[in-house]
């Protein structure tokens, strides 16, 4: 376990290093002049002199290798410079907005599981009956709906026509409802079928008949044996899809003017705020790696076979 953890950590560091390289190259190769971007954002007319001074200040007149080393040394200290837009340290801007996005992600997961788990379970236990058929239709339709369209429709329906929930900003629990529904429902559509098929597969396992032959109750078999057996593929899927959740939240935050990381990054992109974009890349990379590691650990915990390698096949 120690060496495994050590290896993981090493891969993690390597990955972050690679990220720094990529984002550095990306910024350098991107069209547009960094100095011009910074100054023009202020909407101030600049002279060439001022440009040169700024360039020197930003260290952009030094050779590329030196720039990279500078970049790397600041990178290690998590210093990504200041945002072109707000002139505040990037790290700080990102960290202040993370909790909001995190909160939205959690509530969306809550919606996702609250819809997909019961439907998926019921469909697996009563296949081919009407709930199963209906959920199949809903799932395919839900997977085809653009999430932002759903968001817009929800706003129109439950915020404008029928003022139940706020459609913008944040502050109260109610502000989370519509965005979470938007994110959660579109993902739930995909999950219902995945949960269903995973459970169906588990239900056909030999040990189910074995437990039944010993007189164990069906409820117990389902919840303690079957569900646990399905957990591995579901958790793996979940780890992969947290990524989609984070990606989807970018668009959703924009629609609902929800002050999270996603909305901030989109603004940064529109304003060519490269430091923020860089910082975002690195933070996202770190978070996703973390989630993957967590997923692996959880799968290992549930699955003793992976833990105790001395098992017989």
């Amino acid at each position, binding site marked *: 376990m120690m060496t495994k953890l050590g290896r993981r950590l090493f891969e993690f560091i390597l990955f972050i290093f690679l990220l720094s390289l990529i984002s550095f190259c990306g910024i350098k190769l991107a069209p547009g002049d960094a100095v011009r971007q910074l100054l023009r954002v202020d909407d101030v007319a600049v002279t060439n002199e001022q440009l040169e001074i700024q360039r020197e200040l930003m260290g952009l007149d030094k050779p590329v290798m030196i720039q990279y080393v500078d970049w790397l040394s600041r990178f290690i200290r998590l210093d990504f410079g200041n945002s072109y837009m707000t002139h505040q340290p990037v790290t700080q801007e990102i960290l202040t907005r993370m909790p909001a996005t995190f909160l939205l992600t959690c509530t969306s997961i809550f919606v996702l599981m609250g819809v997909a788990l019961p439907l998926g379970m019921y469909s697996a236990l009563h296949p081919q009956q009407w709930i199963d058929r209906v959920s199949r239709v809903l799932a395919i339709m839900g997977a085809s709906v653009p999430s932002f369209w759903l968001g817009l429709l929800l706003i129109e329906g439950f915020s404008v026509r029928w003022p139940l929930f706020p459609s913008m900003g944040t502050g109260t629990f109610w502000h989370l409802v519509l965005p979470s529904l938007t994110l959660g429902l579109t993902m739930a559509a995909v999950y219902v079928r995945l949960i269903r098929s995973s459970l169906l597969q588990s239900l056909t396992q030999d040990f189910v008949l074995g437990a039944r*032959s010993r007189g*164990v109750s069906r409820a*117990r078999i389902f919840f303690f044996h079957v569900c646990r057996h399905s957990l591995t593929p579901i958790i793996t899927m979940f780890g992969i899809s947290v990524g989609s959740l984070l990606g989807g939240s970018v668009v959703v935050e924009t629609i609902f003017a929800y002050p999270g990381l996603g909305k901030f990054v989109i603004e940064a992109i529109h304003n060519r705020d490269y430091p923020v974009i860089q910082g975002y890349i690195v933070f996202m990379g770190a978070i996703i790696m973390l989630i993957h590691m967590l997923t692996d650990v959880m799968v290992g915990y549930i699955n003793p076979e992976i833990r105790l390698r001395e098992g017989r096949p």
Partner: protein
Amino acid sequence: MTILEIKGLTLASKQGYIVRDFELSVGVGMCHALIGESGSGKSMTSLAIGDLLPSSVRISAGDIRFLGRSLLSLSTVQRERLRGKDIAYILQEYAGALTPFIPIGKQLDETLRAHSVLDRKLRKECILQALEYTRLPDRMYDRYPFQLSGGQMQRVSLAAALMLKPKLFIMDEPTTALDRTNAIEILRIISNLKEQTNCGILLISHDLRNVKRYADDVTVIKEGQIVESGPTQRILSAPAQTYTKRLLAAVPSLRIRPS
């Protein structure tokens, strides 16, 4: 009194009849063997006894009586109560019969909890006793099924089955995938059990040597219907039907000397 009595049993599925007009009885302390080719309906019949048929198969006619009571008139819950306690199974897929990621002790404990009200200490004792009876070391209690060999898994299944002292054992190919040593030992344990508890045994097997050695009666089944049935001695030494003769001829080592 007979422990198990099957009369006129017919199992049907969408594809047609799996078993037709089947009859069999197992007496106290007796072992009745059911032999036939793959797909002849042996396993289905055994599953029907314990209400374990897949949803695509139904009992369309006949009756199954256990200790005099008709099983078919009982509710699902009542039949579930019988399983594991009075009617015990050793399934064909014994390797997968236990959930791989839950320790053995816990699963046997689960079975006990489903059927009795013993407290934890007594349950553990009961399980350890069962493990001992099947010649398994105590430490198996904490092991996971995937850590065991085929022979050990078979014994665990046996231990799970005999814990609650069932009246009827249904064994589907208990030794087919085992090596000779393990097979002999398992059968010896089962045979001892029969002597000690006077339970009834329904033995489904390909292995005619075991049938010859342990079964009191034999029923030959082909494509869901009985070919012939009677005491082992008679059937194996002087089979009346052609099919039976062919079945026996396929096992060259089997030689019954007419007594």
